């Protein structure tokens, strides 16, 4: 083909436009085909009804009062209302920590009372470092620790999915920390499970190195994850960082969830992870909840992030 002359004749313009239109039309059609096939592939796994549906909420920091969010109780209440209006009752709701800001008895009372308003059969929690500020988590366990072991870890099975809730916010040196006793628990807990059992892990601090300079990582997570290497579906959900982030490492996918209280900076965006005050009216875009669903046979969980309405 020869180079186009400097000025284009009308015929050439029409010609090029036709090709451009063809490209757009084909791309749209192709996109339709792809998403259609992807949709039927999902539905093919014995109907598109999810095997398990739950909601994650995190970092409510009840008791915080600052410019970044003068009414954290209000925004948490809104998040609860949003979960109650998803159009279905989640099989459970998990709060991934920092329920309170300063671990006072009043704050624990308030957050527990608010969460009884969630329309779901089960509400699970893991503590954040704010929940164990001065007593290594004693008050937290008094309120939320029934049925848990050690510092507050536990596991359960639901519709064939094995869920492990970990505490990595005590005895911190620089990063999150699980500890020998908890690691032993994890190893024993999964020993009898078959490789195709889907595993979901909840923790407050990320179990992957999201930003170690700010403590956004867990120093002995590698060992914990080594016990999960043989499973085909492992998903870790955490809070702590007040922003949505995801990363895949080998067979494990990590999803950090956002907060209902106040945003924190992106990794490295400033000297420290302090509350960020957004321009008026922009706060709710940074807050939110997360819907998660699992369909048997699919290794990847389906996540939907919802900003606060």
């Amino acid at each position, binding site marked *: 083909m020869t180079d186009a002359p400097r000025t284009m004749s009308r015929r050439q313009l029409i010609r090029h436009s036709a090709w451009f239109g063809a490209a757009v039309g084909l791309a749209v*059609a192709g996109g339709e085909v792809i998403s*259609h096939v992807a*949709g039927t592939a999902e539905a093919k796994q014995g109907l598109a009804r999810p095997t398990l549906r739950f909601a994650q909420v995190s970092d409510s920091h009840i008791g915080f009062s600052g410019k970044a969010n003068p009414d954290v109780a209000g925004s948490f209440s809104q998040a609860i*209302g949003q979960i*109650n209006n998803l159009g279905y009752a989640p099989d459970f709701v998990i709060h991934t920590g920092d329920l309170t800001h300063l671990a006072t008895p009043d704050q624990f009372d308030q957050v527990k009372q608010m969460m009884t308003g969630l329309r779901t*059969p089960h509400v699970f929690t893991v503590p954040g470092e704010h929940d164990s500020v001065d007593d290594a988590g004693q008050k937290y366990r008094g309120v939320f620790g029934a049925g848990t072991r050690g510092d507050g870890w536990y*596991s*359960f099975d639901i519709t064939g999915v094995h869920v492990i809730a970990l505490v990595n916010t005590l005895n911190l*040196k620089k990063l999150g920390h699980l500890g020998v006793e908890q690691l032993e628990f994890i190893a024993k807990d999964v020993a009898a499970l078959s490789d195709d059992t889907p595993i979901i892990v909840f923790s407050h601090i990320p179990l992957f190195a999201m930003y170690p300079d700010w403590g956004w990582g867990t120093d002995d997570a590698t060992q914990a994850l080594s016990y999960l290497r043989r499973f085909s579906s492992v998903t870790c959900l955490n809070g702590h960082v007040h922003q949505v982030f995801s990363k895949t490492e080998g067979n494990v996918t990590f999803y950090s969830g956002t907060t209902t209280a106040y945003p924190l900076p992106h990794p490295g965006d400033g000297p420290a992870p302090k509350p960020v005050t957004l321009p008026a009216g922009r706060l709710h875009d940074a807050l939110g909840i997360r819907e998660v669903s699992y369909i048997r046979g699919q290794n990847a969980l389906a996540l939907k992030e919802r900003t606060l309405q």
Partner: protein
Amino acid sequence: MPGGHQRARELLWTVVLAVVMLTGCSSPPSPTSPSVTFGSGATKPGMPGMSGMPPMPDVPAGTTAATTGSAAPVAGNAVSIDNFVFVPATLTVAAGSTVTWTNRDEEPHTVAANDGSFHSPGMGSQATYSHTFPTAGKFDYVCSIHPFMHATVVVTQ
């Protein structure tokens, strides 16, 4: 050659139209709620949610667990917490001295020794915490809420 291009374009449009017509969007079937079973265990962890009633009494925000500070102590034995940093990073005092930390941040912090010899309560903004060091030694500590914050107190004879 113009003829070839013309034919190619016609063929193309036919293909595009055919593909577009063949692809419809199918709506997914509406899901029904699955049954929930738990594994064995004496006490069940977690708490029940609510079935039915709409939530939310209006509860005021909790109080902060801050202790207000007194006047600034002798300059040599003071550590301030500023912008998530302990200042100074290394403080040298004589055995028997009392060190006072002051939190100048809005966020709460704590002072927690790595060897467990001291652990402050949660310190709110402007709160202070004091600890006396009877013996010599090197005491590394962190903030237990933000453990990337670390510093040392060196106690001399």
